[in-house]
């Protein structure tokens, strides 16, 4: 259809704009509160600047390493066909919904002093791999982000029109020429976006640094907020740190949005219809096999170890653990409902706004990516304190924070389908006077069943595994499952910890699987 001054469908826009206003209020509200509190209360110290530097440095290193290491793996996956390839590509999405604390536990079980590798090295008389500090943070961030990087780059390969490779083959170009003429330009266009996405994710990473980091040389802003809160009880100091973290997060996200549209973590869409020419030299084949095998091992070993260690202890879990599990489940479902419904309304508004305002609204929604749960927690604490005991509201605040964090991802999943829905059926709906709730019930929900279920499952799994806000307020009587797991790790009750982690992993993947299945059930035309 020709673009022009199109009559705007207001009914589709205002609820979404209300959601966006709420998101912005939740993102920027803490800043106002925190700034009002912070005024002089807690001066920024040299240690705080060190935390700023560490936050930036670890995020930059994580992004750089993930991106660089992802290239050979993605190239190997793009140009080789083997049994299990599709399963491996699907599994690349798993770390995104794996609870971070479970991933960390698994990595400790592999690389830790008492872990398999550690014990093997000790037996050989070698020193153990240093897993705490910056190295540990980087290994964990690699584990969590390398698969995403591989997937994004693989999509870059898949986006190269097959005709290019056909032409290259027809001209008899060697793999080296193909790389120079076709693949490198694609990488130049793709890699900055990949690196930037990972940088943003790592900038607000908390759980990994809480467990792997610490000490003067590996404390991030998030961890510093946590320490000011929990160890020093210095609310003013926590507030100034939160202001710093929020400024950093928003600045980086804002800058990022100018450069890239955040990558969709959507369902793995059609991969290469025509593979790039496979380098037939045996050296290249070995290198590709090695790259794929190393990635598969790096992903499977920690998760497998944690799961194995945990399954044995599952039956012995106490009632306290099961109660925490139920609590987490309720929060996850509610947060998922909030995030998905909010993303649906916001996405609909974005799809119906004129192109330029739509992009602006989209960018505003994406700012939520730059918000650390610790900042939301601090803001909520400050907001609630004058009226009530914040600790008693820990769970509602956690719910809200989880919904807010899942929101941008849910929006990214739904946005393309909402745009397509509008392009395909917007005029038909309008011409029939199909608006508001009738359109939602008769058109939007049934047509968007799959992406809605995917977004809901992803949000539920993210919320299930989140260890953020809750750590600030923690009160054993209302711990979530990840909080309880963290407690047990701190108490070195590792058997219980593994048991809880198996339960947590099961619930996260189970929620995601159940939602995704609902979306696929009797889908028609």
């Amino acid at each position, binding site marked *: *259809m*020709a*673009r*022009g*001054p*199109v*009559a705007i*469908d207001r009914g589709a826009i205002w609820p979404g704009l209300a959601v966006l206003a709420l998101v912005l209020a939740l993102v920027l509200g803490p800043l106002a509160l925190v700034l009002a509190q912070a005024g002089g209360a807690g001066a920024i110290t040299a240690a705080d600047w060190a935390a700023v530097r560490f936050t930036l440095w670890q995020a930059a290193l994580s992004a750089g390493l993930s991106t660089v290491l992802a290239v050979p793996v993605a190239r190997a996956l793009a140009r080789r066909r083997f049994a299990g390839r599709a399963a491996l590509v699907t599994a690349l999405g798993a770390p995104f919904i794996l609870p971070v604390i479970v991933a960390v536990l698994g990595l400790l079980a592999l690389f830790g002093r008492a872990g398999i590798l550690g014990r093997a090295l000790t037996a050989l008389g070698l020193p153990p791999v240093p897993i705490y500090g910056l190295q540990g943070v980087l290994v964990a961030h690699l584990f969590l982000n390398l698969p995403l990087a591989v997937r994004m780059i693989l999509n870059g390969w898949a986006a190269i029109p097959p005709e290019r490779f056909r032409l290259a083959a027809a001209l008899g170009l060697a793999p080296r020429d193909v790389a120079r003429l076709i693949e490198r330009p694609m990488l130049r266009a793709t890699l900055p976006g990949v690196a930037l996405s990972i940088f943003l994710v790592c900038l607000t990473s908390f759980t990994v640094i809480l467990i792997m980091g610490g000490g003067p040389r590996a404390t991030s802003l998030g961890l510093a907020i946590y320490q000011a809160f929990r160890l020093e009880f210095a609310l003013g100091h926590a507030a100034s740190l939160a202001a710093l973290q929020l400024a950093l997060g928003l600045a980086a996200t804002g800058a990022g949005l100018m450069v890239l549209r955040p990558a969709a973590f959507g369902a793995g869409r059609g991969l290469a219809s025509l593979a790039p020419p496979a380098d037939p030299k045996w050296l290249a084949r070995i290198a590709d096999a090695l790259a794929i095998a190393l990635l598969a091992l790096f992903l499977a070993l920690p998760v497998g170890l944690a799961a194995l260690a945990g399954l044995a202890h599952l039956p012995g879990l106490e009632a306290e653990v099961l109660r925490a599990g139920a609590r987490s489940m309720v929060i996850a479902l509610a947060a998922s409902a909030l995030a998905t419904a909010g993303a649906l309304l916001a996405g609909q508004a974005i799809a119906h706004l004129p192109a330029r305002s739509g992009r602006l609204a989209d960018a505003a929604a994406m700012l939520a990516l730059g918000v650390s749960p610790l900042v939301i927690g601090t803001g909520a604490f400050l907001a609630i304190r004058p009226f009530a005991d914040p600790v008693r509201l820990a769970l509602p605040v956690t719910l809200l924070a989880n919904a807010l964090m899942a929101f941008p991802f849910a929006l990214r999943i739904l946005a393309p389908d909402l745009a397509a829905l509008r392009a*395909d*059926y917007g*005029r*038909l709906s*309008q*011409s*029939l*006077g*199909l*608006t508001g*709730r*009738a*359109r939602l*019930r*008769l*058109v939007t929900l*049934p*047509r968007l069943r799959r992406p809605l279920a995917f977004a809901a499952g992803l949000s539920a799994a993210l919320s299930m595994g989140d260890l953020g806000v809750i750590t600030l307020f923690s009160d054993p009587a209302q711990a979530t499952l990840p909080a309880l797991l963290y407690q047990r790790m701190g108490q070195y009750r590792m058997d219980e910890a593994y048991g809880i982690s198996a339960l947590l992993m099961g619930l996260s993947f189970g929620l995601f699987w159940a939602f995704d299945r609902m979306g696929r059930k009797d889908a*028609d*035309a």
Partner: protein
Amino acid sequence: MLTLDGLVVEQEGFRLEAGLAVPEGAICALLGPSGAGKSTLLSVIAGFVAPAAGRVSWQGRDLAPLPPGRRPLSILFQDQNLFPHLTVAQNLGLGLRPDLRLSPADHARIDEALARTGLAGLGPRKPGTLSGGQQGRVALARALLRRRPLLLLDEPFSALGPGLKAEMLDLVRGIAAETGTTVLMVSHDPADARRIAPLTILVAEGRALPPAPTAALLDHPPPVLAAYLGK
């Protein structure tokens, strides 16, 4: 009577002017080279595109304040006229009540419309299981149920073979004659116009000309139409 009064449509690198009137009950074809703005003109009348100047009115009433669904018209698009996840009966029901809360009387009317368009018994099917011609009939049946005095056809039958298309056009003519509906029909094919449209609006060179008798226009085409027709 449909009146386009000093109408100006402007889009990126595109401008169309129209000042004309279509008498009530007429079937009128819109002919002209592609890109001339035939579909855009229908979009303006239907309310999807706002004109830069001028007004569209039906029986003297300005349509500008009405959203597309409230205008006294039905429109059939080139494609996507049906919701694939709803049954044929539900798709028709949307023409009666957009929220699909249908009464038994509504269902009776749906069955009637299905029978009138030769689709009796197909109500419970999904559109995807119907042929292209049947899908066109469903869209027409819905327009029949909506009982709007104006019907806009934006080449809804262009994907059909010549035989089926002729059949659909005859159905349109029959329904229009029964209900007194005024029809505006975009077409690429002068044979369509000759078949059912006594009047033709020529859309070319940035202007939509007032309706003229189709046969005379096609027999003695002005130069721009002659070039388009290849005469």
